[in-house]
């Protein structure tokens, strides 16, 4: 490594690339694996880059679009499912094009490390006719991000920079460069920017012409210094050897597995380069596509009438890796260590942290036997043991509307306990897309109960500010969305604010709300235990003289409370934060500090 190189996270490198490209506006909603991009952007000087956490990805995209129209290079970042929320503006700003460069960074999550599905962003791109660049390491994250802004301006189009988890969350060596800021003058142009039918019909023609230019550029016809980073590496005697077409992280896996193959590495995975693919296919032996998720490239090659193998070898489920690619092609199992004798290894899924306010919520809901529509956030773990309290999880905001649908359906079907349906949604998720759902409940005379888990932060993605907190991404004080007044304003007057750690009061609040024949909101307020200002004053302990080993405290599912081999129950001082939730559950008052 040269001394001027540094080891940089893929997401940080995207931020760096955008910074060097002169980005002026970045608006995003946090979502694994994309979150760190915008966090890194926020560390640049506020005088150079404006950035914000928007309430959701649609808003973020529209902020970036407006900023691009105004003449400033702009970017919005999201995870794959976030693009569904931002799809509406994406599809139409493909028609308007841009003024200054506009980049959508979309991070897919093959393997679902932290997601609810494995959708493939390239199909959105195809449908919206928006080009897709895919970097394979941090150096390319910088280079391709800069190129994305150039392509955006030269071709008058938004550009998607697609990452996957393994690119976003790998560190590799980069060399940084200087920042230069190309600003464009603002020019009013309704035929370009105001999409009504008459204008949109004309712009659709422009989209198709642009598509042809992009395809030609992908085939090697450079425009204004834009060279598409599709690269062919031929092996010696290539016609007798395998030829691999791949991109992104799959390129890195393939380079390790196929030592003797030729490679067509695609930097641009949409539109695909017909010329390069035909040329490559003609110069190699067996043609193979290594791609994760759907057979996007493979299907295209098949439409060209070229024989190719892809998904016949490699699964569309989860992520690939060197072992999977090697096994699929060579049929060879990895030569690895195995435990000498059978040791049954219990799984270790993520759990609510010690001190987590959600634990109290799900402990109570589980005991009450309610139907619970869950949502996206740490609290989706309420579906796991020991609570098993959540019945359904779909997407951001769906808890509120699903609970409304359930109660309506049950009323129609004559179910008497229809009211025993609640929605559980975090503060950030509620603002993201629960508000419109709650308006639906009120407007359409619903009777469901919405429990907002207000932990004063966006938790799961690693602590980002949100509008209910009253702080911006750069921790400047701002107005805070008042959740009680908001519920009142849309017509819900049955609102209770309660501390979930007061489990009796919380239970009463839920019981009362679900018995009343009107829509209700319960705001369960207690900050995330991982916030620095939350201090519970150190670990508790169990008085073994008093403890009768009944296990009441253990039913909380707290990682700090363990049973020893001799049957005694102990609190692990390295994990316990001293929140005190277990104190009241002990019939012998054996737990204290």
């Amino acid at each position, binding site marked *: 490594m040269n001394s001027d190189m540094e080891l940089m996270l893929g997401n940080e490198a995207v931020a760096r690339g955008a910074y060097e490209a002169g980005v002026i506006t970045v608006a995003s909603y946090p979502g694994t694996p994309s979150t760190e991009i915008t966090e890194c952007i926020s560390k640049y000087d506020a005088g150079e880059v404006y950035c914000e956490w928007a309430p959701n990805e649609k808003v973020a995209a529209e902020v970036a679009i407006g900023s691009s129209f105004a003449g400033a290079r702009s970017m919005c970042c999201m995870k794959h499912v976030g693009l569904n929320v931002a799809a509406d503006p994406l599809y139409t700003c493909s028609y308007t094009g841009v003024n200054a460069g506009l980049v959508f960074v979309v991070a897919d999550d093959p393997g679902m490390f932290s997601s609810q599905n494995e959708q493939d962003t390239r199909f959105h791109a195809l449908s919206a006719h928006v080009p897709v660049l895919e970097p394979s390491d941090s150096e390319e994250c910088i280079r391709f991000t800069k190129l994305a802004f150039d392509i955006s301006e030269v071709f008058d189009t938004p550009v998607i920079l697609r990452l996957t988890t393994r690119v976003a969350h790998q560190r590799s060596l980069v060399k940084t460069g200087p920042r230069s800021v190309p600003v464009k003058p603002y020019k009013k142009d309704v035929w370009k920017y105001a999409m009504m039918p008459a204008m949109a019909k004309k712009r659709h023609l422009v989209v198709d012409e642009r598509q042809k230019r992009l395809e030609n550029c992908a085939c090697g016809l450079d425009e204004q210094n834009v060279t598409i980073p599709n690269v062919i590496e031929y092996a010696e005697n290539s016609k007798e050897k395998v030829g691999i077409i791949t991109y992104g992280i799959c390129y890195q896996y393939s380079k390790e597995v196929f030592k003797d193959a030729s490679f067509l590495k695609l930097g641009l995975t949409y539109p695909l380069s017909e010329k390069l693919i035909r040329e490559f296919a003609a110069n190699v032996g067996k043609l193979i596509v290594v791609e994760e998720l759907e057979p996007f490239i493979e299907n295209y090659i098949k439409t060209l009438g070229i024989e190719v193998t892809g998904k016949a070898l490699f699964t569309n489920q989860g992520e690939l*890796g060197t072992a999977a690619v090697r096994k699929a092609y060579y049929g060879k199992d990895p030569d690895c260590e195995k435990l*000498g004798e059978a040791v049954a290894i219990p*799984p270790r899924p993520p759990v609510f942290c010690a001190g987590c306010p959600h634990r109290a919520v799900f402990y109570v809901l589980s005991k009450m036997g309610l139907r619970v529509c869950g949502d996206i956030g740490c609290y989706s773990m309420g579906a796991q043991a020991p609570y098993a309290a959540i019945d359904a999880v779909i997407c951001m905001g769906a808890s509120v509307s699903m609970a409304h649908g359930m109660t309506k359906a049950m009323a129609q079907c004559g179910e008497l306990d229809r009211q025993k349906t609640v929605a559980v949604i975090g503060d950030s998720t509620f603002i993201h897309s629960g508000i419109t759902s709650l308006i639906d409940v009120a407007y359409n005379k619903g009777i469901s109960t919405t429990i907002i888990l207000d932990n004063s932060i966006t938790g799961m993605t690693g602590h980002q500010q949100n509008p209910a907190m009253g702080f911006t991404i750069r921790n400047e004080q701002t107005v805070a969305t008042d959740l009680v007044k908001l519920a009142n304003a849309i017509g819900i007057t049955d609102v209770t604010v309660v501390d979930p750690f007061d489990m009796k009061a919380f239970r009463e609040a839920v019981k009362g709300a679900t018995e009343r024949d009107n829509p209700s909101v319960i705001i369960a307020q207690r900050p995330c235990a991982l916030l620095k200002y939350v201090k519970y004053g150190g670990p508790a302990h169990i008085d073994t003289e008093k403890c009768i080993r009944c296990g009441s405290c253990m039913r909380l599912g707290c990682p700090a409370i363990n049973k020893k081999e001799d049957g005694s129950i102990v609190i692990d001082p390295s994990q316990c934060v001293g929140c005190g939730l277990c104190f009241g559950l002990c019939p012998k008052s054996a737990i204290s500090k």
Partner: protein
Amino acid sequence: MKSDNLNILIVGVGGQGTLLASKFLGAVAGMAGRDVKVSEVHGMSQRGGSVITCVKIGEKVYSPVIDLGEADVMLSFEQLEAARWIGYLKKGGKVITSTQKIEPMSVVLGQAVYPANVIEGLEKSGADVTAFDAFSVAEECGSGKAVNIVLCGVLSKLVEDIPEEIWREALKKTVPAKLLDINMKAFEAGRNR
């Protein structure tokens, strides 16, 4: 072992400090003039789940991820996690594990049993195992959180072609100045084991 082709797997429980260990090893590799890639797990798994971080060092590194049978050495913060990920170790590879036990929720709830014979099982597998209570060692150095640096200290002795000085310099660059003393002690405690 040598740094021209060295795959290091770091396993533990979310919150134990695997990310700092990978940053440290990345810095070491960089200062030793090697190519290096690191793969981390962020998001959901950090909430007390099983976590795995990969550090790959060599002349030229492609994939940032260590797959089944590809690790030369595994640093493990918790013994059950060493067992869980043993398949990622090359045959006869090196395991450096703390004997610390953290019970997964299934064990806490009585739905599963924490296996009693983990270290033995690892040894019988053919792996070259170094097991000790790195948590206590770290505590003696001033902080239980320095387990990561204790384990890296043990590793430093095994990598023949990177001088001790580089490890020390890299550590200075990786940890905050006010914690350098504790971490330097932890590194030495590991290295001198």
